[in-house]
């Protein structure tokens, strides 16, 4: 646990300095929080708490943030010639790997939760009209659970890619392609389906037991996280990382 925290400590320090200095990094984060916590909620208004679809940006944000960080995890160390020194340390394999995954996932998840909280405050200030607006419980749970699982999925997938990528840019491109494929291929495929099939599909989804479906989706995500983490651990071989 101590080793894991040490790696997390180092990753957080690096994250804070990713824009050159802590001040600049915090300014960039503040700008993003202003967009996702103030501007968008202001635009959405009450829909933010009434419609689940309005929360999609907050599920999407962790993916983007995590992919940016995690692409750098090993490829960046390799590029900056710090990987070999890290591997020559006494830190065990799992601490190095999990430290990077956890830091990236918490970064994305934390940002999503903080921006959702600020967003709620924003709509209460701008659109409450005397009432206290709150996220419906199922929406809040969905945001917390799927935000975390989504961030973890992105972090483990990202580490897996970054382990073998020669450069951060290469890792980031691969991850971007994966994200685009994951999100846009189903949308395009849906558009290509005949109208009747599409309608039947929509009816099927609408008729689903949402809590059960969400639970199954969460279990699926957990399984995917575990598989990707297992693959990353299996791929983490000091000799291979050096020779790559």
């Amino acid at each position: 646990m101590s080793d894991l925290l040490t790696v997390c400590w180092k990753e957080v320090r690096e994250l804070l300095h990713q824009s050159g200095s802590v001040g600049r990094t915090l300014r960039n984060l503040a700008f993003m929080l202003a967009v996702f916590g103030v501007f968008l909620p202001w635009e959405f208004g009450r829909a933010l708490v009434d419609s689940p679809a309005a929360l999609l940006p907050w599920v999407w944000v962790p993916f983007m943030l995590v992919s940016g960080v995690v692409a750098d995890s090993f490829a960046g160390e390799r590029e900056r010639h710090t990987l070999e020194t890290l591997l020559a340390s006494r830190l065990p394999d799992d601490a190095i790997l999990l430290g990077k995954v956890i830091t990236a996932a918490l970064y994305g998840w934390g940002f999503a939760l903080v921006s959702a909280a600020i967003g709620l405050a924003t709509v209460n200030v701008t659109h409450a009209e005397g009432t206290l607006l709150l996220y419906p419980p199922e929406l809040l749970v969905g945001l917390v659970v799927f935000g975390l699982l989504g961030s973890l999925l992105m972090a483990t997938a990202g580490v897996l890619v970054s382990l073998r990528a020669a450069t951060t840019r290469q890792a980031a491109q691969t991850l971007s392609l994966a994200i685009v494929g994951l999100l846009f291929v189903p949308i395009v495929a849906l558009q290509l389906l005949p109208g009747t099939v599409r309608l039947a599909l929509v009816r099927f989804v609408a008729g689903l037991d949402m809590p059960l479906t969400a639970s199954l989706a969460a279990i699926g995500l957990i399984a995917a996280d575990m598989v990707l983490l297992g693959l990353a651990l299996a791929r983490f071989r000091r000799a291979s990382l050096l020779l790559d």
Partner: protein
Amino acid sequence: MRRGATRGVRRPGLPLDSAGRTADRGPGAVHRPSVREAALSAELAISTAGLRRDFGALRAVDALDLAVPAGSVFGFLGPNGSGKTTTIRLLLGLLEPTAGVATVLGHDVRRDGARVRERCGALLEHPGLYERLSAADNLEFVGRAWRLPATERLRRMERLLEPLGLWERRHEIVGTWSRGMKQKLAVARALLTAPDLVFLDEPTAGLDPVAAAALRDDLASLARREGVTVFLTTHNLAEAEKLCDLVGVIRRGRLLSVAPPRDIRTSVGASRLVVTGRGLDAALDPVRAQPLVAAASLADGRLTVELDDGADGSGIVALLVGQGVAIDEVRRGSADLEEAFLALMAETADEARPGDPGGGEADAGIARPAEPARPSDGEPMARSDEAFGARPGPARDGEAGGAPVTVRGSRP
């Protein structure tokens, strides 16, 4: 030489006794079980026996037998691509050996790589510093990784950074520093955890001469003060000569020799006599006619005599005096380490194997044909009046160190 260091020249491939000393059984000696036993000895900081690492068809390290005594500064010399970095990676358990056995601080690197890394510090090919972080953060990370308590981390940081002149600047971002400062910080990082053994892979590479000399001084004093065993790879021969108790020369993955730098030097120039004085012209032919003289030449008022192996120079001095030469100075030839190194490289140049690591770039860069010895590099032996006075013959360089000389040629 400091604690535990073993004197003497070891012919690579020969068995070692339990203290890491050579058990020279002659040129025909081959691997015996005692090599493995010695390799597992905990008295040595590093011992390897028949260590080999292949990358496909490429043999990066070939049958490496090393014995590095605890507390010594061991220099691993070789041209680029000769297998130095691969050897360090093998010794740190970062790479799996293809064959052979390696023990570091009593731990088998195959089985206990993690334990080896726990007890070692390393400055590898690159400084490996997190350039976006401050110097203090870089060291803090290493201190935490080795689980040093907070007060101890700070104490060690100050102890190491203060003499390097970096303590006051520890909160600066490392990326803004000069290369020399980064190298110093990387050295401090390698020593932060008070390791039993530290690997330094070409620590002064890429530095300007002034920065390199400063770092070399710092390294020497830090290593001495910390009492740590140092395994230093370099192709800077002056560096090896200044810092190392023992030097191993490697080429194309094969160990050519292991000896104190002084012995390696004398192994090349030991049979040379350099005489300066007046009236040498007339003595040249009589000297050439001597049975133990392989060659003699006269240039710039300096007579250089190449003696057969084992020949004593006192007879030549007596002859010169008899010929009426007014001798100013007699020097027993002693090449510098560079000359010795080049000679070792040249000796094995003919053994080049296609596809060997370092066969191209390395040879082009370093292993050019050996230049003629520079007589001025020889150690002053005696003034003329002493030369044929109380001492019947010149003292050998090698004898001064109390060690046998001559380690040349490839491992049998």
